């Protein structure tokens, strides 16, 4: 019987959320939701009688993790004693002297990849399975992909590579030796990659599982785990969406002629209602807004229709009545508008909004 497996990575349990627009409560809730998703993976493992669980890096956020939480994970692993869990360390949980993994007793079904310089090989003869992996160590400047390329595998066995390649996470300092997929695709029957937060099937047998629960607006829509069967030359697997919420980016282009309600409707009906009351939505507002319309009021009004919504202001204000009358920049409001026209500086833009708001209120009050 072909052994069943689940491939996941980048769960980032206990992470700190950097989204400034998230309330403290929301961050706490989201942190707990990462645990819920982790529990969901364990549940799937149990229900589907998964033989192998590959966690390819960043299972936890070591900087913010404690032993109490680690014991919580161990308890979960103990509950799936018939599943062999192979854990590779990533940049968020690097394996080094400070690694918490080294100071706890994992149950016997857990195999932690402790090698950071050489590829570690695990053999599971009952399934004719040979697993190769190398953990990430932050003290090493870059990962030693050469060691991976140099592996000679037993062709008789099902060879699986578990590799964390932190290309996305490192951002600007992209690794010099980028993983060459062509060099590994034929050597291994299945390459479980981690370190990228979006699901990405590079080749038929080379896959980034992505994070099971998204953590920022930079991540795509679909998030979950890869579930399949290990087989020589022919692994079969599917992507299973298990994420509780999505981070959705939407773009709304505003025309200067749009009124208050039209802009509000555009935001309200920008996605499906179910998604709006469940997911995190970021709306990128572009185009030109009539200077007489208060976008802040629209934003506040729109919030009630969403579980979470934030805005990115990439629009410009313009005076709808753009005609200039010779020597007739009559009152202070008009003059004020003219003063700020075409100012790109954020502070000046904000100042413009505030001043205009005060002037308008003064006009209304009077």
């Amino acid at each position, binding site marked *: 019987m072909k052994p069943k497996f689940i491939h996941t990575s980048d769960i980032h349990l206990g992470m700190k959320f950097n989204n400034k627009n998230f309330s403290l409560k929301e961050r706490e809730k989201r942190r707990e939701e990462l645990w819920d998703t982790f529990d969901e993976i364990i549940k799937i493992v149990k229900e589907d009688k998964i033989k192998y669980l590959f966690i390819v890096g960043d299972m936890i956020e070591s900087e*913010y993790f404690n032993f109490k939480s680690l014991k919580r994970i161990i308890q979960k692993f103990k509950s799936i004693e018939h599943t062999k869990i192979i854990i590779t360390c990533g940049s968020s949980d690097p394996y080094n002297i400070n690694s918490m993994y080294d100071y706890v007793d994992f149950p016997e079904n857990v195999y932690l990849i402790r090698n950071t310089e050489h590829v570690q090989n695990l053999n599971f003869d009952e399934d004719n399975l040979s697993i190769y992996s190398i953990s990430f160590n932050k003290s090493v400047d870059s990962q030693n992909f050469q060691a991976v390329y140099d592996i000679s595998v037993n062709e008789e066995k099902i060879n699986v590579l578990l590799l964390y390649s932190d290309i996305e996470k490192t951002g600007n300092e992209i690794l010099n030796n980028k993983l060459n997929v062509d060099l590994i695709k034929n050597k291994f029957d299945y390459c479980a990659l981690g370190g990228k937060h979006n699901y990405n099937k590079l080749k038929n047998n080379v896959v980034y599982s992505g994070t099971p629960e998204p953590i920022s607006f930079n991540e795509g829509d679909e998030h979950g785990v890869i579930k399949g069967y290990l087989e020589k030359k022919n692994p079969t697997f599917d992507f299973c969406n298990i994420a509780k919420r999505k981070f959705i980016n939407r773009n709304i282009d505003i025309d200067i002629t749009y009124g208050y309600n039209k802009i509000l409707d555009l935001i309200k009906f920008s996605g499906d209602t179910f998604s709006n009351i469940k997911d995190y939505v970021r709306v990128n507002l572009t185009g030109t807004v009539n200077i007489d319309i208060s976008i802040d009021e629209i934003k506040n009004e729109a919030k009630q229709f969403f579980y979470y919504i934030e805005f990115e202001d990439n629009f410009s204000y313009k005076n709808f009545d753009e005609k200039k009358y010779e020597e007739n920049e009559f009152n202070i409001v008009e003059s004020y508008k003219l003063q700020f026209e075409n100012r790109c500086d954020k502070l000046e833009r904000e100042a413009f909004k505030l001043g205009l708001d005060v002037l308008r209120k003064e006009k209304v009050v009077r």
Partner: protein
Amino acid sequence: MYINKLYLRAFGKFVYKRIYLGKKLNIIYGENETGKSTIHSFIESVLYGFDDANGLDLYKKYKPWDSNLYKGSITIDGFNNNKYLVTKDFLLGTTKIFNKEFDDSDVSDNLDNPISDAENSDCPGAYFFNMNKTSYRNTVSIKQLGNKTDKELSVEVTNKIINLSKSKDESISIERILASLNRIKEEAGSEDNPKTLLGQYAIRLKDLNNTKEIIINRNRQVMFLSMEKKKLMGKIQEIGMHINDLNKDLLTCELLIEKDKYTKSVPIKAELDEINQELSQYKNDILKEYSDIDFDDISKLNIELDLMRSKRHELRVQKEELDEKLKNLREDVSNRIKNDFDIDKMNDNFINYQKNNNKITELRNKILLGTESLKGYDFNEINKFIEHYEVVEENNNKIDMIKLLLSDKNYDLMMKFIKSQNLKGFMFVLLGTLFLLAAGYSGYMVYYFNAVEYYGGLSTILLGIISYIMAIKSGRRVSSARKEIESIECQHLDYNKIVKELENENDEIFKETGCTNIEEFKSTYEKKEKEQNIITEKTKLINFDKESLDKLVIINSNLEKNMLNDLAIFDILEISSESVEKANEIYNRKDLVQEEILKTQNLADEKNQVLNIMDKEISFEEKRFSVILNSNKMSSFDEFKEIVSQNEKIMDLKTKKVYCENLLSTLLGKRSLEELRIKTKDLQNFDAKEIDEKEYQIKIFKLNEERNQVQININNIDKEIDEIENTIRNLAEVEEEIEFYEDKISFFKEKIQVAKIASEKIIEISDSIKGDFMPLLKKSISENFAYVTGGKYKEVAIDEDMNISIVSEDNNNRNISIDSLSGGTIDQLYLSLRISLSNILSGNQNIPIILDDSFVQYDSNRLKKSIEMLAKESERRQVILFTCQEREVEIAKSMNLKFNLIKL
């Protein structure tokens, strides 16, 4: 420049409405709902459209409901010395401006040359007045000041001038705006001031950073503890290895011991096999499950039951004997005697019975003698004679009665009556005839001689008739009396016949009795009557004796019956002195027998009771016996005994087996003999060295102790780690909170910065307005004010501190505070202000001014001054005044002002 004509082709309620306006003062008068506001809105919408916030509502409001069109035009004259037509189609949203001469009647059809300036044509108001809609509303369309006190008016106008001077908007106060912006800054405060938001955030941030530092230190401590733990775990591993080495040496030593154990185990194993062989004969380890206690119980019970049964048998025999005796006693005759039986009564009855028998014999003899004495009398003859006598006597009585009835008294009376009635009848006939004759005579006299006095005589006819009637009645009475006499005569004949028959019967009786006459007959009768009395007396006596005899017989018969019944109790069937004696003897025996029965019965009951108890006990014990058997699933005690004996045998074997197994177990432990054999078979190959086993064991023990101690230390470390982690906050949470407050601080700082920039910009613009616009405004107001006041006031002065005063020519150029001006003068100042604004904005074009019901609240004096002022202004520009009151028109007329009046 002035508005020449308004053409409302279809707008609001107006269709084809043309309004011609004069160049100077125009008063458009119309009561409420006549369309003043519509015309005002028409001017504004043609010039500026419906594009602002309320545009859609106004567009709908003025859309004609009864026309497909929605358009109109305005003619403006004097702009660049030309005449212009502005047309607007509100439905299409098109506006056109023409500057050619055109025919008024055909404004909408022959316009083919609009001004090509498309930008301006969209908003003609801006084109002609050079101002946007807001400015238009603030200048061209003038709202007058409210009906306030002079002081309030002065404050309002002062504020408007100051606001205009600083913001070019009379409603925007720069001071208030700057105060608002400053409030934002003040609310945010600073990080140094703990009472402000920023100060609070800074404190919180400081706390959080401290917390973070503590958490990091504690986490470091946890990590150190973890490392210590790891070290200790390594030590445990090391100790474990040492223990293993020692154990290895011990193992060799142990093998020697094992070999010895093996050697000892072999014979025990053989014996065990033998026992097992024997036990295997029995299918089960125990033939049948039973309880030993039960077996002991049932054995004892069995013996007890046997004893009890034998005792019960003895009791039953005794009981039967007593029952037999009791039966005999109960069957004794005396027992049948009821308790209420009276033996004395029976004895008395017997004595009476004997006495009665003697009396009966006596009476029977007496009756026999009496009967013999009566035999000499013929009762029938005596009785027959007496009957005959009675018949004769009755017949004689009847004859006497009839004779009495046959007396002639009635007959004579009847005869006399007939005679008297015949006489009466004759007398009445005669009298009647006389009366009739008298009446006939009277009639004759009246008829032939007409003698009136004879009329009375005619009445005798009636008397005559009455006399005849009476005569007839007497006749009838006579007739009925004669019939009665005939009846009496017949009755006499019948009575005589009966008397004869009775006398004949008496004669026949005499003949029969042999008597010849009545006297003889009577004496015979008396004799016979005496005989009859004697017989009757004797018969009575005999009958009395018979009755006494019968009574005695009955009494004795009852006594006999009772006696026999009583004796029958004693089984005696005859009445005799012997039998009575016997009965008395039985009766006297009764009490003794009863006593004996009671005694015997008690004995029997006692025995019975004992037997019942015994039965119950036996039954209970038998049940218990049966229960024990059942509970042990035995059919009989014998089977139980058999099985127990067999099981005891098995148990013996098992005990032996256990003993052997224990021995083997002690020797082998958990291993099998075979394992031990295999383990020790190569013992000769070991390089067995002699060791001090005890010493080794002590070493191992100590190492284990050490290992336990290390484990305790590890556990303590775990506890400490738990405690630390439980007492500190989550670092991610704290850092998030720090970021949150940092964001807040930077947000408010930015807000302060933003408010500062906004303030600076506003001040900058305001200063620029003050520098550029205020002198212009001041100059224009001064000119206009001087004009509208007819030169009374020369100038309006505004100093650096925005103090406004008026320079009066009359008072040697003295500055007069605006507060001391009258309401009317303030109105003039206000109008001057509006006109000035209009002039400044329009580039001194003298554009029209429009006033919509501006003076409604004014009193007559103030209104008069205002009209006068407008009239003066209308010399320079067109003035359009909308009003709903006729006061304006009347005042203008009274003042002989020239004006164009349009009535709606």
